[in-house]
């Protein structure tokens, strides 16, 4: 077990502010590594890291792969159509097969909430949740926190808006837990079907008054230090969650004009991939306030930190 003192990274709900701080500090050190001509350190030499993705992903899978490679681990990418693993027993069998190959870390993405925790209970390997259904995507949350901390020097006291399909978003859940634990305040914004008022109650017990749900983008942006724009998935149309992409963009597309309603210099984030013109305008995505490319670069450093803290030996640190 690495210096984090945990076997797995399953969610940000279960981490303390100190643990999150430790990961972000470590990521800062690894960010330096990324700037060197030789971007490798031997921290995970001889360890096996497997990327097991049951949902298509380019950026997260690549980011984890690069992170593991830069730590000198042996990395395997396995992409499975969800149809081939219908039963969890088969998922457990798959994991057991990898364990027989001296698996060190399993990076897992599935369409099912709780699947990372489920596998973690049945496996000796370290499990890193790379997105489980609608539950959490903790390394995305961490890289968003890292991006904010680099820009503002702190997360505490920030006003952060999260806009879009919050209901179905694992990114939003991880972001909110991380932001609250580090002392920020959150406005969740979207139509009532994708961002119901009932969401606020999830965090009300642990962080009273720190999460607000609003349905008007202008209200969410007013006084915001940063805004995270979520990807809209077109299959939501089939479940009657909004009438059309046209109407959605009229109400919720982050445009330059709307962004002027936020604090000057409000940081714009998007976990990608973007639907330009639907949830975010091209001008904002590519504009001076956009941190979107920086998020991607920070992702590698944060994932190196996570892998190292979970699975790296103490002396290699």
């Amino acid at each position: 077990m690495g210096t984090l003192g945990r076997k797995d990274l399953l969610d940000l709900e279960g981490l303390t502010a100190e643990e999150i701080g430790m990961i972000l500090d470590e990521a800062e050190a690894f960010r330096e590594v990324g700037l060197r001509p030789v971007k490798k350190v031997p921290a995970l030499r001889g360890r096996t890291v497997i990327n097991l993705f049951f949902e298509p992903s380019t950026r997260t899978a690549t980011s984890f792969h690069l992170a593991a490679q830069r730590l000198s681990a042996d990395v395997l990418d396995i992409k499975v159509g969800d149809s081939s693993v219908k039963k969890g027993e088969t998922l457990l069998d798959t994991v057991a097969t990898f364990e027989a190959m001296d698996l060190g870390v399993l990076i897992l993405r599935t369409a099912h909430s709780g699947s990372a925790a489920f596998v973690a209970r049945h496996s000796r390997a370290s499990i890193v949740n790379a997105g489980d259904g609608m539950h959490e995507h903790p390394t995305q949350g961490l890289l968003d926190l890292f991006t904010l901390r680099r820009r503002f020097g702190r997360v505490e006291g920030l006003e952060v808006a999260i806009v879009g399909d919050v209901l179905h978003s694992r990114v939003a859940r991880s972001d909110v837990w991380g932001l609250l634990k580090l002392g920020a305040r959150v406005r969740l914004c979207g139509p009532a079907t994708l961002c119901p008022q009932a969401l606020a109650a999830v965090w009300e017990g642990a962080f009273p008054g720190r999460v607000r749900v609003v349905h008007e983008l202008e209200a969410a942006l007013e006084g915001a230090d940063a805004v995270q724009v979520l990807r809209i998935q077109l299959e939501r149309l089939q479940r009657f969650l909004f009438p059309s992409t046209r109407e959605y963009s009229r109400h919720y597309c982050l445009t330059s004009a709307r962004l002027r309603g936020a604090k000057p210099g409000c940081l714009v984030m998007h976990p990608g991939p973007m639907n330009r013109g639907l949830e975010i305008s091209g001008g904002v995505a590519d504009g001076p306030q956009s941190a979107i490319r920086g998020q991607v670069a920070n992702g590698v450093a944060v994932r190196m930190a996570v892998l190292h803290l979970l699975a790296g030996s103490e002396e290699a640190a």
Partner: protein
Amino acid sequence: MNPDAPFPGRAEAAPLLITGARLIDPAAGVDGAMALLVEGGRVAALGPGAERRAAELPGVERHDAAGLWMLPGLVDLHVHLREPGQEGKETIASGTRAAAAGGITTVVAMPNTLPATDSVAIVELVRAKAREGGVVRVLPAAAVTKARQGAELAEIGELARAGVVVFTDDGDGVANAELMRRALEYGAMFGVLLVEHCEDKALSAGGVMNEGTVSLRLGLRGWPKAAEASYVARDLVLAEATGARVHFAHLSGRASLDLVRAAKAKGLRVTAETAPHYFALSEAWLAEHPYDTAGKMNPPLGSEEDRLAVVQALRDGTLDCIATDHAPHGGLDKNVEFDQAAFGILGLETSLALTLDVLVRPGRITPARAVELLSAKPAELLGLKGVRGTLAVGADADLCLVDPEEAWTVDPERFQSLSRNTPFAGRTLTGRVKRTLVAGRWVYADGRGILD
């Protein structure tokens, strides 16, 4: 002749005198210490008369039940025995053993078998298996529609003539309102009990737990209680329009119960059951045991408001019965991700203890009310008033002896059921079944297990 009479071909049991127990029999208006004499599988005499008659009879077995409660055998309207078709989860033999261990002496076997129980041939198969290997009485229910497909009526008349009383597509409701209307009208001719599984599948689609704060936190797809209540509302309208009686299975939500209460006040012929988990647990269990598939059932555990409404409805008569919805599943169905897991939990071996522990001990309901809910009322709904659900003279000698003070810890490894899926594992309950008698024969004794 009872089509569900157990133990065919066996020599008649010796007369049995049970003394010292507190007999709680609300259907007969009895609550007090009283001896009971069984002869020929029926209750022959009670009180001093029983003692006098026993003194005259040769070979009477005497059983001292001092300190125990004696209840009419429990009648469970809602049990999935899984046979034919899914014998790895449960069989009629194992399921009836589980019932006996829970003090349950009559079970209504749900027809969502493989193939569905929608014909006299399959009903007879279930009855034959019950006679061969069953230790309690089994009443097979039949499907309302052919193959439970919701498209055409099953042959309700022929099935009713063969003795089937309960008709249900349980696992699904009868979604087509016209078909439900016709089922009510047609079934009423035969006096059958139509049991509805209330779930609007457009509203529940994809849902795996109650929609609310916990589902939002865990990122699990929510299933709103409106899926149950809107269905109840439709069926109440149809019941009123047809004048037929309807019975609602496993109600779990406040809104549904409010509708049933209002319908009863209007005089509609409507009855309803709930299951023990809906008064014992709420979605908070899943907050404490995230993604634990032992907490996944259909309908899902509701909010605390729903749970309290269920308790209130059990008190005020809105709910008529407690039925287990015993739904055995094996590891392949439950040791998987929450989304993928089967719906349903075991119930037979914990139902009475949960009722006593959660409802009777804290004074929410009286012991007599518990017997009404678990035995007298379900027997009446099956058309067995005076025969089951009571220990009046002449009634079937089906009973259980219960120690109301004994605390025990639920250990699924010790269940008679073939399956282990219960959220109550490790929970300590006060109130324990000590013995179960069916048709005058002991079938279960605590510490000894099933008495074959």
